[in-house]
Structures are given as structure tokens and as C-alpha cells.
């Protein structure tokens, strides 16, 4: 009898957290875990264009994907895309954080202005850049024309998004533009944690400005830098609206990354698209694992 009540008590105690964290677990289950399972299943199934599954397809979706003539190019472009956008973002943000960390009148307002691309929908920013690059009336083309850098409006030269060689740099530029605010703010938060007396000591020792930055600021900024970089890698790898709004991955697949390719495949073959998603997801898992290793989440949780 006594034993029974103690078991009952233990069960009740074990279930105690359920009303509190249960809804969150269910929501994560429905929206995150379930899609992962469905996606992996779908990648091994034959699915009609209308979404009806027609049984197992073995590894055919994967072999079809890997045999796509554009697959290699798309994967290589995704890599270049992530490396280019994140490297440029981090380097420029380091400079911006240094600048906005100085004291000057109106600093708060200048920092607020920097928020705009972060708060605004990435899609809207991409649409407005596409508009500014319009061959006929785009503002950027008009400025280039008036500066004598562009011969005439309306021609092929005035359509940078029409060719892969000029479209890609513009896509990278827009991606960097929308990534700068968060990265700069994260680095500013990191700079704020560096105590002033460290700099005082360096000045006493007669260290130069550059030397101080290299030997004191950068090493102390490393945790913020690492996390900001990883979050950026994740965001840029999963980036979709910029390319979708500005070029749709065209001409051909010449500006498509793996997420764009996955979305285009979804229109013709959901199974193959699921295979592409699983490949993407594998890379995301690797990135999450790296994040969990380098971040100090444990100290915050406990």
C-alpha cells in the first residue's frame, strides 16, 4: 500500500512539469520534428505532382538529384555564396562596430538608422534593390549613368541582374547589406563587455592603436565574433528571399543556391526536392553541432 502511494507520488512529480512545458514541446514537435521526419520519408518515396504518394522509390530520388547536370554547380555556388557573404559581413561589421563604439553626438540615432535592414522584411529589401537596378528607371543605374560609368540606360549593360557574372555580386551585396546590422550589434555588445581599464593599461605601456586592437580587442571579442559568424552562416545558408525576388536563380540555374534549387525542384518532383532538402538539412545539423560545441550555453542554463 505504502509502496503504491510512493510510486503514485513519483509519477505525479515526474509529470509535474508537463502542464508548463508540455505545450512548448508539442508545438516544437508539430512544427519542427514532424516536418523533419516527413521530409526524410518523402525523400525515399515516389510522389505524384499533386502530392499523392505512390510508394517507395528506394534511392532513386537521390540518384536523380546527384545526376542533375546543375547539381554540382548549385552546390559549389552555395559554398561560394556562404563564404563570400559571411566573410564580407564579418569584416565590414568589425569596422562598423569600431566606428559606432566611438563617442560622438547623435550616436544613438545613427545606430538606429542601421537597424532598418534588420527590421525590414528581407524580401522587401530585395524588391527595392531590384527596383533600383531596373535597366530603364533604376536609381542605381541612373547614378552610374550620370557619373559616366554607364553608357546608356535601358541596354543590356544597364541590366546587371540579367547576367550571372554581374548578378551574383549584386546578390552578395544585398545579402551582406541585410546581415550587417545584426552582426554589428552583436559585436558592439561584445565590445561593451571589454573593461576600460584593459585599454588604460595598454595606453600606459605605450601600445599603438593598431597593436591594442590586434592584441586586446580582437582576442576579447572572439566569443561574440564566433557566435555572430555561426548565426550568419546559418542564416546565409538558409537564405531564400533575396535570390528568389531578384533573379529566381536565373538565367538558367546560374544564380541558384541549394535552397532555391530545392524550391524549383518542388514544382516538378517533390521526392527529388525532399532529397535536396535532406542534403541541406545534413549540412544544417553539422552547423548546429558546431554551434553547440563553441557556444557557452551550459553556463547560462545552469
Amino acid at each position, binding site marked *: 500500500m505504502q509502496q503504491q502511494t510512493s510510486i503514485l507520488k513519483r509519477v505525479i512529480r515526474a509529470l509535474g512539469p508537463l502542464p508548463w512545458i508540455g505545450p512548448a514541446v508539442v508545438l516544437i514537435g508539430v512544427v519542427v520534428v514532424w516536418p523533419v521526419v516527413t521530409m526524410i520519408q518523402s525523400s525515399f518515396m515516389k510522389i505524384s505532382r499533386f502530392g499523392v504518394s505512390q510508394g517507395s522509390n528506394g534511392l532513386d530520388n537521390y540518384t536523380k538529384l546527384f545526376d542533375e547536370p546543375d547539381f554540382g554547380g548549385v552546390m559549389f555556388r552555395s559554398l561560394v555564396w556562404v563564404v563570400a557573404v559571411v566573410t564580407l559581413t564579418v569584416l565590414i561589421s568589425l569596422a562598423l562596430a569600431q566606428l559606432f563604439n566611438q563617442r*560622438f553626438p547623435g550616436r544613438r540615432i545613427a545606430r538606429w538608422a542601421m537597424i532598418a535592414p534588420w*527590421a*525590414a522584411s528581407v524580401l*522587401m529589401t530585395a524588391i527595392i534593390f531590384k*527596383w533600383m537596378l531596373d535597366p530603364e528607371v533604376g536609381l542605381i543605374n541612373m547614378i552610374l549613368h550620370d557619373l559616366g560609368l554607364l553608357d546608356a540606360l535601358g541596354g543590356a549593360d544597364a541590366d546587371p541582374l540579367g547576367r550571372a557574372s554581374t548578378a551574383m555580386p549584386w546578390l552578395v551585396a544585398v545579402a551582406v547589406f541585410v546581415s550587417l546590422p545584426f552582426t554589428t550589434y552583436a559585436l558592439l555588445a561584445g565590445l561593451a563587455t571589454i573593461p576600460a581599464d584593459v585599454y588604460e593599461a595598454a595606453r600606459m605601456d605605450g601600445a599603438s592603436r593598431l597593436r591594442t586592437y590586434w592584441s586586446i580587442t580582437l582576442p576579447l571579442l572572439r566569443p561574440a565574433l564566433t557566435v555572430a559568424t555561426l548565426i550568419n552562416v546559418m542564416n546565409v545558408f538558409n537564405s531564400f528571399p533575396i535570390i528568389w525576388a531578384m533573379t529566381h536563380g536565373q538565367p538558367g540555374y546560374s544564380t541558384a543556391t541549394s*535552397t532555391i534549387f530545392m524550391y524549383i525542384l518542388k514544382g516538378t518532383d517533390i521526392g527529388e526536392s525532399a532529397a535536396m532538402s535532406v542534403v541541406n538539412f545534413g549540412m544544417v545539423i553539422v552547423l548546429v553541432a558546431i554551434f553547440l560545441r563553441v557556444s557557452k*550555453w551550459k553556463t547560462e542554463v545552469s
Partner: protein
Amino acid sequence: MTTTEAARPAAGATAGRTASPAPARRLPRIRTVLVAATAYLIAFVFLFPYVEMVLTALRPQEELLKASYLPSVFAWENFTAFWSGGLAGNLLVTLQVAAGSTVLVLLVALPAAYYTARHAFRGRMAFLVLVLITQMFQPTALLVGIYREFFQFGMVDSIWSLILVNGGFNLAFAVWILHAYFSSIPRELEEAAFIDGNGRFGALFRITLPLAAPGVVTALIFTFIAAWNEFVVALTLTTTPERQPLTVALNSFIGQYEVDWQNLFAGSVIATIPVIILFVLIERKVVGGLTAGSIK
């Protein structure tokens, strides 16, 4: 010595709240001017596309396809025309999705964050790691799975599927920031209110929640903006034009030619400017929530 004393209040007043006067005094004036000028220029670059967005939205229709830097007159009627155009319905969908997701996130995140901050229990660590992992995931990577799932549920084109997905992917931010707030409120405060006869829930609602209000507001605004701006999931899960949020509707505008372009830009201004202003309100707290568990 006297000059330093005299300069102090002035330097402190201009440099603002956190200023320590001594370094500001030492800074050569010309350098401050250069720094400020560069910063203002950069601030302008960041605002530039949005200024152009507003200027385009204010162009009279006949000037939209004219290569001129500025419109000859500001056509404010473009905004009134937007309300009577078809896109107003899409704005309503956006509003419903954003509001619904925000309510869902608060209902789910508040109890979870409170309980994990107050109690040690088996599975607490596992739960927090699960939340941290979902924070790193983005719907784009799971798009095909999300589509297949809601297709099977028969929930394609439904506002509820968008609310669920937006809620789920923004839950992590809310849990982290609320967890941090609840952890920072001393348990004794709550105990005292409890002993004073307020009851467990009275103590929670009268003491703890008001103290965590800044965190709640931050989570609320952040979720609202994220759901408001969301594009990829909505693009995948909605097919009927009237059921699409504004982002998807505006994007499908681009491909067409015989349309009222200024509707597109009036719509993008309405979709963009309010969230930029909202974001300024929570700017100081957002970095902490996004990099939770990392910068300390």
C-alpha cells in the same frame, strides 16, 4: 586643472548617458567630427533603399517609368488607392498571422520559461537544448517537410498553418529571453507576496510578471515582426491569391507588367516602415535573445 573641471559637465552632457567625461575630453575635436561624419554617412547608406522605397511609393503613376531622381509632386493618394486595391485583403492576412503567432508564442513560452527558471526537474536540460536547437533551425531547410505535413492535414491555404509554423520557429527566442528575465527575479520576492496572502498565482501575476514585463514586450514585438516579415513558408503554404500574406502577394506583383506599380510600393512602405519603428523599441534587448547562451 580648472579647465578640466569646467569641461566636465559639458562633455558629459553631449556624450550622453553612459559617457565618462575624461576620454571624451582627450579626444581631438577634428577626430570626433570625422568619426561623426563617417557614421552619419553610413547611417544614410543603410536608410537609402527605404528612402527610395518611400519616394517611389509617392510617385504619380505617370512618372513611375520616368528616369528622374525625384517625383515632381508627392502623390499621397497612392496610399488611399492601396486600401481600395486588392492588396488590402493581403495586409489583413498578414496582420492575422502576425497577431495569432504572437499570442500563440506568449501562451506557450511564458509557462515554459517560468517553470524552467524556477524549478529543477528531470529533463530540464534536455528541454532547453531542444529549444536552443530549434532556434538554429530555419523553416527554409524544412520546407518540403512542412509542405507535406500540412498537405496531409488538409491545411494548405489556412491561416492556422502559418500561425503554427511562425509560432514554432519563434518560440525559442521568446523562451530564452523570458527565461533570462524570470531567472533574474529573486525567488524571495515571490515568496514574500505568497506569504502576504496573495496565493501562488496572485504572486505570479502581481509580482513576477510585471517585473518581467520588458522581456515579455521584447518577445511580443520580436515575434510579431518575424511573423509579419515571413515569406518562404507563406509562399509554400498558400496558393490562393486572396489567402496570401502581403509579402507573397507583393512578390507575385513583380512578375506582372500591366499592373499599378505604385500599389506595390505603397504596399511595401506599409509593410516595412511600421516594423522598423517597432524594432527600434526593442533594439537593446534583441541581441541578447538571439545570441542566448553564447555571449556572456
